[in-house]
């Protein structure tokens, strides 16, 4: 469950401040599919980056699975690596120096045992029909394959809400 309340965010622009988010509030229930829709530059990405912890909002509050990850009142900010969420970046952001397997296994590496990593990564790669590409380096993939790798990597966090971000333009 994700709950966002009164989120405000400004960026310093060349002509003064740009108010990217003005009091954004919404709630997403468990298992719910939620879509942010709007024209370019309306703050969809900024909202997601705030939830992920990659941006620090000016004010507001974010709660993920009953855990307060951000609150502006008594400054409370949990860094992105401790928020346990998966994210698919617009550019997919697949690490070019690693194979498909290593990309997907990376989020697991410090948590699980090796045999378990093999099983889980192998499982999800097969489910996305990427099994045959496990040893391929990330730059040698097609666009659609890269997208699936990014999805597989985002879905790796066990207790994950997955923030899928994909703009259709």
């Amino acid at each position, binding site marked *: 469950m994700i709950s966002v309340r009164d989120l405000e965010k400004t960026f310093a622009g060349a002509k003064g401040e740009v108010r990217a988010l003005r009091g954004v509030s919404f709630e997403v229930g468990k298992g719910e599919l939620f879509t942010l829709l709007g024209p370019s530059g309306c703050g969809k990405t900024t909202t997601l980056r705030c939830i992920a*912890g990659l941006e620090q909002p000016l004010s507001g509050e974010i709660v993920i699975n009953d855990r307060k990850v951000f609150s502006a009142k008594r400054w409370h900010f949990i860094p992105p*690596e401790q928020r346990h969420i998966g994210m698919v970046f617009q*550019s997919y952001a697949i690490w070019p*120096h690693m194979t498909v397997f*290593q990309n997907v296994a990376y989020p697991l590496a*410090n948590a699980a045992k*090796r045999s378990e990593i093999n099983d889980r990564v192998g499982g999800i790669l097969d489910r996305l029909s990427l099994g045959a590409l496990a*040893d391929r380096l990330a730059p040698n993939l097609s666009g659609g394959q890269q997208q699936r790798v990014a999805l597989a*990597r985002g879905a790796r966090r066990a207790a994950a809400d997955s923030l899928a971000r994909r703009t259709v333009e």
Partner: protein
Amino acid sequence: MTTRYLAYSSRATTAALCGCTAELEEASQMAGAPWLRTLRRITMPLLAPAMINVFLWVAVHAMQELSMALMLYNPSTVVVSTMIWSMWQNGRTADAAVLGVVLIFLSAVLLACGQIVSIMRRGAHSSGILRDQRKRFGENVRRC
């Protein structure tokens, strides 16, 4: 000497830094990796090739640099290039030639190292099929 080549090296590393976009590091954070692990596993491996190449480039060029060394050297800070120069001035041409060969040999070794490193990296990148034949997942996990 390093200062003199700073402009070249900074240009070269800037190019590498452009290739290492912020999203790649953010993706690592999202994967639960603290900054140290991100630095070690994502940032450094992406920058390493450029760093090594720039190091070799500056080293090879600085080694044979003469004009600046001539302006700055005194009897207690003789380097190979100024030594060759003074040998030549004193008519010890044979000695100067020997040192010149040594200098060329050293820079050739350094350049060869760079070539070997880059060939090895390219080999590692293109040998997906080869790696397939090795113990597939065991190999991968060791690299994780």
